């Protein structure tokens, strides 16, 4: 774990949120990168390897559910954790059906997020093995 930092991609339309989470994860030894649209996320994944995607469900333009669908199609190995707001339980269920590892409601406690990221990465590792 320590030797290989987990590669995390954060996708959310709130730039401020993305930058803060990115920095906090980096401080905890992750290798985190943030983007603010679904399109950017797909472009990023096309070029660079990634372990877990932290994905906001509600985004203007290409929405979170569309992104997870494409990730699962194009990069089936990448685990996705959904970030949802209040009143979007339906979206969360839909995301789980599409293959999300789990979902958390915003705002998220960093410790919870870290534990989830590690669990997701473990499943990914198991899957690859």
């Amino acid at each position, binding site marked *: 774990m320590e030797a290989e930092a987990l590669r995390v991609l954060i996708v959310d339309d*709130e730039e401020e949120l993305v930058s*803060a989470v990115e920095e*906090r994860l980096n401080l905890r030894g992750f290798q985190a990168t943030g983007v603010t649209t679904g399109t950017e996320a797909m472009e990023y994944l096309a070029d660079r390897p990634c372990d877990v995607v932290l994905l906001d469900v509600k*985004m203007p333009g290409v929405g979170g559910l569309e992104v997870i669908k494409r990730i699962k199609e194009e990069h089936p190995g990448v685990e996705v954790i959904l970030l949802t707001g209040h009143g*979007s339980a339906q979206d969360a269920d839909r995301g789980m059906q599409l293959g999300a590892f789990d979902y958390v409601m915003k705002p998220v406690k*960093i410790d919870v997020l870290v534990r989830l990221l590690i669990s997701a990465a473990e499943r990914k590792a198991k899957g690859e093995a």
Partner: protein
Amino acid sequence: MTNDVSQGPTPEEGQDLLISQRRYRKMRIAAVLSVSVVAVVPLLIMTGVNAYQYQQALRTEVTSPLVRFAANGKQSLESFLSERLSALAMVVRERSYEELRDSRQLNRVLVNLRQAFGGFVDLGVIDEQGVQVSYAGPYELEGRSYSEYNWFHEVGMRGLYVSEVFMGYRNVPHFVIAIRQSTGAGSEFVLRATIDTDVINTLVGSLAVHRSGDAFIVNRENILQTASRLYGDVLERCPLPPFPFSTQAELIEVEDESGESLIASYAQIPRSPFTLVLLSPRGELHAGWLSLRQDVLIFLAISVLLILGVVIGGSTYVVNRAREADLKRAALYHKMEYTNKMAAIGRLGAGVAHEINNPLAIITEKAGLLQDLIMLSEEMPPKDKLMGLVNSVLKSADRCGGITHRLLGFAKHMEVQRETIDLDVLLQEVLGFLEKEAAYRNIQVDLDFPEEPPAVVSDRGQLQQVFLNIVNNAFAAVDDGGHIHIGIREVGSGAVTVTIADDGVGIPEDSLSRIFDPFFTTKKGAGTGLGLSITYGIVQKLGGQISVESKVGEGTCFTVTLPTGQAFP
């Protein structure tokens, strides 16, 4: 808010009450008047008609015996007179003048007449010169001359004579009948008989109809010929006005000198100076009627009072019930309107909560990062880094504040108040709530506002509700990526239209006419069916109009027309 809900909203209640009380008072007066007229007038007419008929019947009942008795009495008196005149006529035909001049023969005739007819007191034969040549009777009247007497000349003229009643020598009332006859020797004589009035008195006395009535005979000068119960004895003057000539029994109403009103039936006896008079005091006639009239009036008064009481009570009760029902309905409507608005706000609330969540998440993360930097870094992080984070937190908090402020501003306009409203600003406020949804669902909202949109004087809270309902419906109707077009246009002077058009599913034609009906909904299970009905009610109340056009698959367009000016009801 919670307080408002439990008490129920009371907008306009004061105004409603004022209008209502006047309206219901009018309603009550109209009800009382119409029902009273309908109930009382026939009663009055029926009572009047009945009373009149009864009065007529009563009158007939009193007057008809009077007339009948008069006719009968006249008949009897006429017979009485003609019998005696016929008897005299027979005597002068059967007996010669010479025979009659013989007092003994005349006495026999008198005895026969008394036996056959009665009432004869004496008989006398008077020659052409007026000298009584023979006499049979209780007095010594032979040789007496009647040449100076009126009656003697009259019998000479007419051949037949019936005198008025007089006292004469005997000082008892009697009258005279006389008949003229030729002697056979070129001259004439008169047979004269004195008739006792006892028979007539008895006859007339039996004719009085009532105990308080009277029956008597007067001559042409209104001198009593028989005793009257009311006006004195024989030969006294009867104080009644003279009776017009009639041999038929007539009925008249007269007033005597004492002012008493009487009903009189009278008839002249032919070939005599006598008029038979039957009197009945009017009071007699009226006594029955008066007591009946009193009963009728009391009955009528009680009936009318009862009817009026019931009508006033009933009308008041019904109108009060109607008013209560109206007030209840109005209160219910206000409550429904309020509930609908709260439901709309509730729907918004979900969206708002999500919106607030984003800045909240930023605050959490920025603050968390700040904590991380302090806890995890060995040296103090640079000042500008810290300031950047703190500014982010403050900015996000401001964002939250803005959102809650907007929601509160929207929810608080519950009381009706007039103010000048810029429609474009109001529509922007409404759209502010749906901004995020539009963004997430890629719904394009086009605004077509004139450079200086007309301001309207209206109620802000109500207008917000109207447009929020319609725009919410438009959002529900369109698919992701759909279009909504909102336009403001001034039409003519004093009116402005707001059109909200979408390219959504559209409304089927058969539903179109019903979409403003309460409880009609096309959102199966998701809607109350109150939104548009309440929207319709509010627009009406604000003095405006709302219309809708729609085509399935092409979209729906709502047009709200509002008065701009002071034409607020």
